[in-house]
């Protein structure tokens, strides 16, 4: 039982799709490989699929008189769930978040069905040591209802009416269309990415914490326009990347590269000085989070630019020095 097995592989998947088509031209076969394969797959896969006089192909297709190809198999290839996949499903039944997706009946039915399948692990075997303790109440009835309504609206691009409490405690009412649901393992919270469907303004993007939704109603009205998620993300993307210089002491290079791996970045290492310079792009809504995480590296990291970002670091260090002097 291994994840790294050819039965899950890209080549097997492409061949399955081709066999399902039963009959095709060579150019249709190539299109499928190009669409679903890796960059060079056509080079490797095509000669093994198209019948060759020397018999070097796999014998999965035959050539018809008109030059088209037909599958040598009779039935659509089936893909039964493997034991590994069943064990993964069984494991997920122990995760409280699965109740956001399954009704009580679905949950108990599936639990009964997989009761003899061993999970891959139990919750005692794995833990986060620094996950925030105020995560969302995934098993709360109202929370589950809000999540379910949002997911239903998201599937159909339905407009929802939301009564919401902001981070500063202000109440507001919003009409939005959800398009992505986002989970953070650090915060253990779920947020929903939405657009304002009737906004004339360029900035029509908002992120709502599901845990802060007071009430929610699907309106029965549907949004028919396009949602350009990339354009939405650009609205909150930093105008300029933060540039930092990292010294090699205290294993800082590795610690930094690991911690900031989720971000888009450019890195350069000066081998003479050992200093690594990194440009990091981030979501401007997370600026404070980025700032304090960078300060956490102490004197092995310097924020070089943008000036406003650096200034925020300077002010905090200045304040710290003043406190230390007065003590």
């Amino acid at each position, binding site marked *: *039982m291994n994840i790294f097995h050819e039965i899950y592989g890209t080549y097997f998947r492409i061949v399955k799709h081709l066999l399902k088509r039963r009959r095709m031209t060579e150019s249709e076969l190539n299109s499928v490989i190009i669409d679903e394969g890796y960059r060079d797959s056509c080079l490797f896969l095509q000669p093994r699929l198209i019948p060759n006089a020397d018999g070097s192909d796999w014998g999965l297709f035959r050539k018809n008189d008109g030059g088209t190809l037909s599958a040598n198999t009779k039935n659509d290839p089936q893909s039964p769930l493997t034991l590994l996949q069943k064990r993964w499903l069984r494991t997920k039944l122990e995760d409280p978040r699965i109740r956001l997706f399954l009704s009580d009946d679905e949950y108990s039915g599936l639990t009964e069905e997989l009761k003899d399948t061993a999970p891959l692990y139990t919750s005692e075997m794995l833990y986060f040591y620094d996950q925030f303790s105020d995560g969302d109440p995934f098993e709360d009835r109202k929370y589950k209802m809000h999540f379910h309504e949002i997911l239903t609206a998201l599937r159909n691009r339905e407009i929802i009416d939301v009564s919401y409490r902001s981070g500063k405690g202000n109440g507001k009412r919003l009409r939005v269309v959800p398009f992505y649901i986002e989970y953070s393992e650090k915060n253990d919270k779920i947020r929903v990415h939405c657009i304002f469907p009737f906004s004339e303004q360029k900035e029509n993007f908002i992120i709502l914490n599901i845990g802060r939704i007071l009430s929610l109603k699907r309106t029965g009205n549907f949004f028919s326009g396009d949602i350009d998620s990339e354009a939405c993300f650009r609205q909150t993307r930093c105008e300029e990347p933060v540039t930092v210089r990292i010294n090699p002491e205290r294993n800082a290079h590795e610690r930094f590269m690991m911690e900031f791996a989720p971000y888009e970045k450019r890195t350069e290492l000066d081998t003479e000085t050992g200093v690594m310079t990194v440009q990091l792009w981030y979501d401007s809504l997370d600026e404070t989070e980025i700032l304090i995480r960078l300060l956490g590296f102490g004197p092995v990291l310097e924020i070089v630019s943008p000036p406003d970002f650096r200034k925020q670091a300077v002010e905090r260090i200045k304040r710290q020095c003043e406190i230390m002097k007065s003590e």
Partner: protein
Amino acid sequence: MSTFSELIKTFSRTRDYVRDFFIYGCKVRDDFKHKSSRTYDDERRRTESWLGDYINHDDSKRGRQISMSVDSGHITENPLYQAYYAKSFTDNDIKLHFFLIDLLANGKRFTSQELTNLLFRKYDFYLDEKTVRTKLKEYSDEGLFICEKEGRTPYYSISPDTFDEMSGRYPGLKDAVRFFSETQPFGVIGNSILKSCDMQNDRFIMKHNYIARTLEDDILLDILEAMRSERSVKLKIFPARLYLSENTKELNRTCVPMKISTSAQTGRRYLIVYTPSKNSFDSIRLDYIKEVKPDEPCPEYSALTEKLNEELTHVFGISFSGRNGTEEITPLRITMHISPEEYYIFDRVKREIRYGKIEQTGENTYLLTLDIYDPKEAVPWIRTFTGRIISIEGGTEEICRQFRTDTEAMAKLYGEVQA
């Protein structure tokens, strides 16, 4: 001389390269000198082939550097899963796969001899019965086929369990799999289910998404199996990752795997182990582990788990600081300035503090007490409160001194600040 292939036989070498391209991003050809240049070229070409859209080539002073840059918070599918889908196979593997599935599609069951005959008759594919039987056994172990014995003769049929059928009965399952396919560990297994049904995740994204962790999933699976069967393991470990050289030697260790400890904030994942010869717990970075082999059963596993759970109530991160649970702990006390209108700072401390408490000691001052083995581990977190730390006491003297000298060094680094 063998020719280049997009597919790979073993995962471990590729795991190292993909990780280096993704995590470190500033390595040039010379930095891989512990490998042959041909290996480097093949691995680079393969990675480009799988992950073309995410690969950057930058010309630096040191040479051309290959990096992978992904804004992991805004993607619906972890691109690194591709590495798992590139396992090489033989001609017989793929032919047997599709022909056997075709023969068994009608739901009937056959012996290996019958299937061997049918392969020849229907597809002109001749193999000896032993080869066919080996594949049938492998697929039965994987769960694709069902093997039932009648007397001493095994009969094989295809498993009727498909995700399409299952999700038809449990409609909520499709979105559950979409969601969990992007969570770690083993999101790649969920992704393989989606792909088997021509589905994709187009609605869930993950913030603070450490996608490179998936590269450890195959190692992790072996470790978890050993934990489930309460066995010790033999590990092959890299001493460090960032600057591997030709002199870097792997270490061998025999230990009892106890728990997997993950940092949601730094992306690092650790295996907590018990070493009988030292009678103590410690941790090993999961991405430093190259190979896992199950070893002897550990009869005292339950007692060790109990002991570990107790010790973990004093471990801020993953450091046991060489203790065996008997030494006294000097709590680390941090006094912090928080004015009443800065309730959000108080809330932040409350949700982030672990193995400690926060109490108000003045109108604008709060005392954080951390009951932890290794106070050094808390320092990066304490520094995130730069600008409001009034004092640090307890723990070790070194910590208090280091915080002061670090702050002075930061003041010097930024120039504008008078230390």
